[in-house]
């Protein structure tokens, strides 16, 4: 008694596949999302005309429900007739098996996540950028630092607290992913060979198709452990990156 459910779950091949998929989708979405968000924030951090309009334009995707995003992008990532593969064919690239191939399916799902969240995170980073004292840039400009130099030497290190906030929230949300993979095909169980079955889909499957709540709850605890572990790794990485690029420390 006691830990039977955990032992059972940890011995399942499907559980480890789910861990792999969850981490893979998370990495494939979080890394480009963060880079794009920083770039978008930097572009928005100009002395723009119609500021509010441009800021709103990056936030539109946020009001679309993930379920809807999944259905829209699902229709673009068809293997035979999808918009993406047809466009690739125009430039001479062979069709990508967006559903059959595990990694390709992760890319497709990550695209859905990024559509909805990149602009949102860009606005948070923009707020962080605007809080950076302008005289830091001025003195750097006087010393002859160019735009790119100022960005890497001042913006990124000064943005550290905001970056940590964005990364932590993206980690907590990203590892729980359910809606997009659930609607990526009609069965919703993560593909015939569990290509895109995430931990939360596995939890759902144990709890609500096999009606074993004990096992489902142990997957929930293991997911929590994964979230905490990845959160700590992220924190360590962010610390290092931000302080290495700092001007004087």
């Amino acid at each position, binding site marked *: 008694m006691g830990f039977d459910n955990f032992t059972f779950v940890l011995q399942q091949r499907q559980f480890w596949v789910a861990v792999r998929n969850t981490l893979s989708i998370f990495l494939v979405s979080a890394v480009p999302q963060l880079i794009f968000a920083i770039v978008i924030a930097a572009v928005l951090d100009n*002395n723009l005309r119609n500021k*509010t309009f441009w800021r709103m334009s990056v936030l539109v995707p946020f009001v679309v429900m993930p379920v809807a995003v999944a259905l829209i992008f699902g229709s673009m990532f068809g293997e035979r007739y999808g918009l993406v593969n047809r466009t690739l064919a125009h430039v001479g690239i062979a069709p990508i098996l967006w559903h059959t191939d595990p990694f390709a399916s992760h890319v497709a799902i990550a695209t859905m996540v990024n559509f909805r969240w990149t602009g949102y995170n860009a606005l948070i980073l*923009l*707020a962080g950028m605007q809080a950076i004292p302008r005289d830091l840039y001025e003195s750097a400009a006087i010393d002859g630092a160019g735009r790119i130099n100022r960005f890497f030497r001042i913006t990124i290190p000064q943005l550290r607290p*905001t970056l940590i906030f964005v990364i932590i929230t993206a980690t*907590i949300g990203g590892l729980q992913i359910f809606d997009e993979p659930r609607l990526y095909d009609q069965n919703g169980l993560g593909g015939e060979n569990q290509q895109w079955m995430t931990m939360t889909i596995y939890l759902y499957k144990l709890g609500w198709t096999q009606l074993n709540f004990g096992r489902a709850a142990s997957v*929930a605890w293991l*997911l929590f452990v994964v979230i905490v572990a990845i959160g700590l790794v992220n924190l360590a990485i962010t610390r290092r990156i931000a302080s290495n690029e700092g001007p004087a420390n």
Partner: protein
Amino acid sequence: MTVLISGIRRRQAEARIAQRPGLLVYGLLSAILVASLFPFYWSFLIGSGNGGTLSDTSMSWWPGGNFLHNAAAVINNESVNFWKALTNSIIVSTVVSASVVFFSTLAGFAFAKGRFSGQKGMLLFVIGTMCVPTQLSVVPLFIAMSTFGWTGTLGAVIIPGLVTAFGVFWMTQYIAQALPDELVEAGRIDGASMFRTFWHIALPAARPAAAMLGLFTFIMTWTNFFWPFIVLNQSNPTLPVSLATLQANYFVDYSIVLAGVLLATVPLLVLFVFAGKQLVEGIMHGAVKG
């Protein structure tokens, strides 16, 4: 002399930073705008075609004329239950956001301005629960809902969402800095009860943050899928739940699925047109403080 030169240099540097951006920046922004809006256009393009549009290799980039026809197919589909889902989504999102605002402001007022034992510890506990994933509460919550006989009813979605840790944290932060202690004390000295002080002094002072919290909660509740999907069923769904049904029904006919997607998305798009500016400000404001 050096002072003068550095003054000139400084002004040049300032000018370089403050100058209006060029075409490149606006070009990038336009590209981002197109990327944000393209999926909507794509949905309309497919949603206004017919069952064969998606697989038509010579597909036109001009919308077809079948949107109303496809939308009617969504609305008239009995298992999708569109009107019921729309009504339910409106009820759930409105009740949940009103309640989150009320209780979070109440708790925020107590945490920010009250003096009671265990105050710090309790606030920390509330904030701590924000790090716990939804998944961890889903199994026990579902068993509780089954025991109460609430599964399949809106209560199962509304009641667990009546107050959120994020809301309490958000309002505590805001009230702590926006409401002067003197004002609360003045109210108390004038003989107002704690609740009257809350209602007439704290609530008006907290309005900007409360509006933001309400807007945010409304969007989060409207778009939420995981829990409603578990605890509700097709005969009494919210919009995301019925969109999932729509996909299971019409897996070949994307023109109907995407017409349904647009129907379900329009309400929040309309809200965004009116409240998008506040939403942007709220996200940016919360970020600086958070």
